[in-house]
């Protein structure tokens, strides 16, 4: 496969590993990745075992996992309303809320439709004029422009029965929160490849500028990730932190201006609650005033009494990089992909699922 096989080349990978191993810092260097696809790629490659001097930890990069129990509970509440269809990406179906999941609600008769894209949800709205179709809008900057495009389409088509629950998250504010929180030591960030396709490299500049730490935006093949690690080790060695882009075949410094323009035409930053990280200012997205009628919360009372994470589940600590999946007492024994307890095991991009499958 073009643009894949070349970046899986075993000879280049081995040489990169050798070069990385030549850096010596008298301590383990710790890099965090904040992208579910990187988490999976790193586990799958087995590169952790080949790099004894580097500690690779996962952060809040799985969009399903970072969605709070409260937002799941609100979504479940919505599916219990009359004449309502919830449209969602498939990954959200099995995520447990405080006492139920969408899957559970479906078995009780809730109308939930799994879609592949936001435009599919528009189609459902067009086909069901007598019902309200609500799209569960989760995801990072890679996904939110696709939702913005759907809102603009809905406006163009005069679609009155379409709305969204905007639970989007923005990645750079979460990275910043981890650095300011100082709970976890981080020596550098592997920045998410496809979030960066949209936002470019500028939003990460605070990492070298304010925290004097390296960052590299990279792709998902072993050579991409090793290339990023090599660059960050060199930055540390030469004391010149920067945001580098080894994934330049897909990421431009300015990102995708068309997608950014659509995104911020429709949405503006707002406070958001993350699983594990809590409430972070300007880390979510809400609809701008002009698009208020597409905000599902205008039509439904979604107050829920009290929300709680699954008992014993360590997802919160795992998303902050404080724990590894194997440090959760429920890992593998009680919690596994066929009987997942927490979202990090439900989502295929979650750390626990990746550790179970490839660990």
């Amino acid at each position, binding site marked *: 496969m*073009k643009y894949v096989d070349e970046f899986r080349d075993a000879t280049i990978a081995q040489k990169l590993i050798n070069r990385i191993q030549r850096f010596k810092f008298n301590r383990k260097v710790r890099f965090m990745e904040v992208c579910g696809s990187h988490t999976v790629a790193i586990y799958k490659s087995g590169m952790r075992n080949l790099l004894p001097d580097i500690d690779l930890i996962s952060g809040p990069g799985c969009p399903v996992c970072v969605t709070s129990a409260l937002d799941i509970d609100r979504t479940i509440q919505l599916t219990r309303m009359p004449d309502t269809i919830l449209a969602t990406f498939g990954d959200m179906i099995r995520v447990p809320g405080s006492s139920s999941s969408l899957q559970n609600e479906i078995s009780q008769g809730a109308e939930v439709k799994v879609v592949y894209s936001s435009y599919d949800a528009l189609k459902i709205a067009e086909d069901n004029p007598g019902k309200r179709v609500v799209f569960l809008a989760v995801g990072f900057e890679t996904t939110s422009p696709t939702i913005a495009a759907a809102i603009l389409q809905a406006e163009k088509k005069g679609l009155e029965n379409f709305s969204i629950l905007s639970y989007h998250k923005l990645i750079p504010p979460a990275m910043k929160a981890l650095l300011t929180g100082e709970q976890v030591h981080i020596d550098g960030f592997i920045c998410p490849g496809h979030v960066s396709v949209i936002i470019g490299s500028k939003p990460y500049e605070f990492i070298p500028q304010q925290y004097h730490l390296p960052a590299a935006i990279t792709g998902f093949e072993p050579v991409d990730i090793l290339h990023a690690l090599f660059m960050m080790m060199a930055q540390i060695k030469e004391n010149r932190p920067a945001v580098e882009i080894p994934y330049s075949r897909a990421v431009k410094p300015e990102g995708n201006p068309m997608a950014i323009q*659509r995104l911020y035409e429709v949405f503006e930053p707002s406070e958001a609650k993350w699983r594990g990280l809590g409430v972070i200012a300007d880390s979510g997205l809400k609809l701008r005033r002009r698009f208020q009628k597409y905000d599902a919360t205008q039509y439904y009372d979604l107050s829920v009494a009290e929300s709680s994470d699954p008992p014993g589940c360590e997802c919160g600590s795992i998303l902050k990089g404080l724990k590894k999946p194997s440090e959760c007492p429920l890992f593998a024994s009680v919690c596994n992909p066929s009987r997942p307890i927490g979202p990090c095991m439900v989502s295929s991009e979650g750390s626990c699922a990746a550790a179970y499958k490839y660990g």
Partner: protein
Amino acid sequence: MCIGVPCQIVRIHDQMATIEIGGTQREVCLDLLIDESETRVGDFVIIHAGFAIQRINAQEAEETLQLLKEMME
């Protein structure tokens, strides 16, 4: 949600493109590409949730590989 590998465009029609992934074909929307008018059959694109979000820059890919090879000599 995320497809990590670039997909090749086999057909373009209106604002949509047919792409091939692992032997199956899928429809994706081109609304988020700034230079969508320059997108051609045969191009590789990054796909996310039913949208093409970027075209792969062949020259950049070549340069990265070249750089890696030189660096490793």
